[in-house]
């Protein structure tokens, strides 16, 4: 029963997310474009699938993984768990190493949640379509996930040592600018995009919990001020990792087989978009 109520609430929340978009689309389609939608029934069914799919996805995460993930973020950042024994004793002044497990968790959970992020899957499928397989779905997702993992890990380190966030972000920007000059031109828009798509449904709730837990546990940090910023790291670093991935691929040569990760037969009868 409790599950049913929860399910209804999640479904309602997702519907609230879908409705404004549907309203904008229908409004412009009917009032401005005044053209019938091709395969309107199929498109409507697709929207229904998105609604049901996202609701089930969120419900599953909220039932199973989010509570556990949040609990773990709390436990790993709690005072009792912080291991002050070995590194500080060996190397004086290196007490940020006490939080080694936190960085490891940040890295691992950043990578894992990004691999499951639905909007990244969407962008990767589209990029693979458009590039005729030259940009692989899998390669793009893994390089974005590595970027997020490194970013969140560094972000937790920043919270522990208490450095101002802007020095990290500005340094990151400079690196992105330098990479932009050298990276293959076709990857640049996609790389910039991948910063924005990484952080949505799956990543944000877990990462926010980690940031707030850490800012509460480290002495001298204010959760309201220092707890923010992990999302920013998670949006910046994939830009670098995707450009680096493309750079490496360009250096290695382009003799690879195109990947077919997602089966094109999933939706076989959608006609390809007409190209002029």
């Amino acid at each position: 029963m409790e599950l049913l109520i929860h399910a209804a609430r999640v479904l309602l929340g997702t519907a609230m997310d879908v409705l404004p978009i549907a309203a904008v689309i229908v409004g412009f389609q009917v009032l401005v474009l005044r053209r019938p939608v091709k395969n309107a029934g199929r498109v409507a069914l697709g929207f229904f699938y998105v609604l049901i799919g996202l609701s089930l996805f969120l419900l599953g995460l909220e039932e199973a993984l989010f509570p556990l993930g949040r609990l773990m973020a709390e436990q790993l950042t709690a005072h009792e768990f912080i291991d002050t024994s070995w590194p500080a004793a060996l190397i004086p002044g290196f007490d940020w190493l006490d939080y080694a497990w936190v960085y490891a968790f940040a890295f691992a959970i950043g990578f894992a949640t990004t691999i499951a992020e639905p909007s990244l899957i969407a962008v990767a499928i589209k990029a693979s379509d458009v590039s005729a397989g030259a940009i692989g779905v899998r390669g793009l997702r893994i390089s974005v996930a590595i970027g997020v993992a490194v970013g969140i890990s560094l972000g937790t380190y920043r919270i522990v040592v208490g450095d101002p966030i802007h020095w990290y972000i500005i340094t990151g920007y400079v690196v992105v600018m330098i990479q932009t000059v050298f990276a293959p031109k076709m990857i640049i828009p996609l790389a910039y995009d991948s910063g924005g798509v990484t952080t949505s449904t799956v990543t944000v709730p877990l990462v926010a919990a980690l940031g707030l837990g850490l800012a509460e546990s480290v002495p001298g940090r204010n959760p309201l001020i220092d707890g923010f910023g992990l999302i920013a790291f998670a949006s910046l670093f994939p830009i670098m990792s995707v450009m680096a991935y493309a750079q490496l691929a360009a250096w290695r040569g382009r003799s690879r087989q195109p990947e077919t990760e997602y089966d094109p037969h999933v939706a076989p009868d959608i006609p390809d978009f007409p190209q002029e």
Partner: protein
Amino acid sequence: MSALTPFLSFLRSLLQSLRDLTPIIAVVAFFELVVLHQPLPDVGGLLVGLLFTVLGLTFFIYGLEMGLFPIGESMAYDFARKGNLVWLLLFAFALGFGTTVAEPALIAVAGEAAQAAAVAGVIDGDAAAQDSYAYGLRMTVALSVGVAIVIGVFRILKGWPIQYFIIGGYVLVMLMTTQAPREIIGIAYDSGGVTTSTITVPLVTALGVGLASSIRGRNPLVDGFGLIAFASLTPMIFVMAYGILV
């Protein structure tokens, strides 16, 4: 094609979704069992949740290919045929503003930002002042995403290289960082990441790619992507401006 084909491809999608979720399961299990030395609580509930997640991801991917991608591209194509720039830009704005203003993640972040501002003494601590601050912030971010999609669509039409815009935006962010109050900076940087929801991203991507494919001389890969990048950049600028002005 046999009658089994759709069923088999559904099964394949399910397996694919399961594979996408394996890393999360592995990370949670490893830290729970090996690092924290605690047994997994409620294994039955976990498995049910996992089943929901796998089914949900599979349905979402079907819905992408059937609904979000085709409608985004067909609307881009129709707008290009119609050739009316004003309507296209208005649509771009409505899509950006409309999808952001009700975004739950944004509502949550705006509330936290208002709390942070109250603690820092920027605004009064009472609920009314915090609510109006949070509301203003939300509108600011939604406006910034609307503007972002408009600029991004205009760039696609003109075929201008994206890096000048983004790097110009970065320089602006850096300059504003020196002026903005300290407690708004972290929130401003984060706001870029939370604006783009799971439904907006595929739709906006399809719109960009569709526009770039239906205009002669544009490359869908080089010109079609980049709308999300604008939508992640402008909120930072607008939120810091809000912090400086309010």
